[in-house]
């Protein structure tokens, strides 16, 4: 009798998993389901572009470390270049900002803060900038006089000073010490400082005790992410702008969560309204939509005024989390695709639009509503 019951349950679970496969809502468990597609000339063209012969001495040209393609929740393509492997928790650089935004999305769902709250409410060091709201930080529109240039203007780069010299002990405090160049919420100016103010504010939102594990308890554990590392500054604040690490497969879980508007295995982990906010183009000044379109700590391919986005070869619903040296997490809901590309690009050879064009040609899917 027990044996028959067991067999019945087994049959049920097989039935359920088979049904979900066909219903196009496959979810990764401990690991991803894998259904590699057969090699085609289009896949070879993609691979030739992303993985040309590699010179670790000159470090010139396109240097992909990982390329992972998920379609409808299953791995259909995966390739790594040594020393990176499927187990490497790779540095994501500024993809960290979008990951922190997703962590904040969980806190938002828990009603810990509102977008129109003053940042100073949760991060008192910002008391002298009481008119800056969370919405402004999310849009990189704090109006703080920040200089993001990395390698070309190292002397006056706020971000180099923040990570390595004057700011590294307490990055949020360093940011709060900047002057003002514009009214908050009016002008887009990409700023790692804005992202670290978000990371510092989370401390008071969830409490000092819970803070250190919050990205794990709120987001990583529910998604089954086990490789994550998130470095902090000497004051204990997560370096929300730059220093999250995880495997390509784990980062793809965040992509799938975004593709499915915050839902994870039947649970609304992040509110839909938060995702819509992330994916709505910011309507501020100084946005060159052919170069980059900011949403809420994510990058978009649709502009506020209907002009051309930065990736003309990809559908308008494409969005991405992007980082220094060519890190990218692309999500293309209309094609059912999530793509992770890790790299070590030390020059400007790599182009997002070209990769997206080749990937869409290599992995065409049926049109989705």
């Amino acid at each position: 009798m027990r044996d028959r019951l067991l067999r019945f349950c087994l049959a049920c679970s097989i039935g359920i998993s088979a049904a979900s496969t066909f219903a196009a809502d496959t979810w990764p468990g401990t690991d991803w389901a894998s259904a590699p597609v057969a090699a085609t000339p289009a896949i070879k063209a993609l691979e030739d572009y992303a993985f040309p012969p590699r010179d670790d001495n000159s470090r010139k040209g396109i240097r992909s470390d990982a390329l992972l393609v998920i379609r409808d929740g299953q791995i259909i393509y995966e390739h790594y270049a040594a020393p990176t492997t499927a187990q490497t928790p790779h540095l994501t650089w500024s993809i960290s900002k979008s990951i922190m935004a997703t962590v904040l999305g969980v806190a938002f769902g828990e009603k810990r803060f509102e977008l129109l709250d003053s940042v100073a409410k949760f991060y008192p060091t910002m008391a002298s900038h009481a008119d800056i709201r969370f919405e402004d930080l999310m849009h990189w529109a704090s109006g703080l006089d920040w200089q993001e240039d990395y390698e070309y203007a190292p002397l006056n780069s706020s971000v180099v000073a923040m990570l390595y010299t004057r700011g590294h002990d307490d990055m949020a405090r360093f940011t709060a010490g900047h002057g003002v160049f514009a009214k908050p919420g009016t002008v887009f100016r990409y700023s790692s400082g804005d992202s670290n103010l978000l990371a510092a504010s989370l401390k008071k939102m969830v409490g000092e005790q819970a803070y250190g594990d919050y990205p794990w308890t709120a987001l990583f554990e529910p998604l089954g992410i086990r490789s994550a590392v998130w470095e902090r500054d000497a004051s204990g604040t997560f370096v929300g702008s730059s220093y999250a690490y995880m495997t390509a497969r784990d980062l793809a879980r965040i992509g799938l969560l975004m593709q499915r508007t915050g839902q994870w295995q039947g649970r609304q982990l992040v509110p839909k309204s938060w995702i819509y906010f992330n994916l709505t183009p910011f309507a501020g000044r100084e946005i060159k939509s052919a170069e980059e379109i900011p949403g809420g700590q994510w990058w978009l391919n649709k502009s506020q005024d209907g002009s051309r986005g930065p990736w003309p070869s990809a559908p308008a619903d494409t969005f991405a989390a992007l980082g220094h040296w060519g890190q990218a997490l692309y999500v293309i809901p209309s094609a059912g695709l999530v793509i992770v590309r890790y790299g070590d690009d030390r020059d400007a050879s790599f182009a997002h639009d070209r990769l997206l064009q080749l990937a869409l040609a290599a992995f065409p899917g049926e049109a989705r509503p």
Partner: protein
Amino acid sequence: MSEQRAFVVRRPVVSLLMLLVLALAALLWHNRLALNAFPHIISAYTAKEYCSCRYVMGNPAEYCRGYVKQYVPASLVDEPETKSVSAEGMGESAMAVWRGPRQGCVLEPDAP
């Protein structure tokens, strides 16, 4: 009459040089914070990013040395037993330490 001619007219070259020195001093003063911090970039970058390359990403030591290499020379000492990395460059030094599986590496606070 000649004694009363303006200094600028009597000594045009010296005047111009003085003006340049003044402008340079003003520029240095204006950028004093950034200039003072600047030499520290190389050692801090090298120590921190090597530590993370080696102990967070788990890449081979040799690869990580190439990964942090810059045009400005820097020396690096990696102590695997304590997972601490110190670096020197441009006459400054910095140290990064691996703190744990979730925390990764952090730059030690600067000596006062």
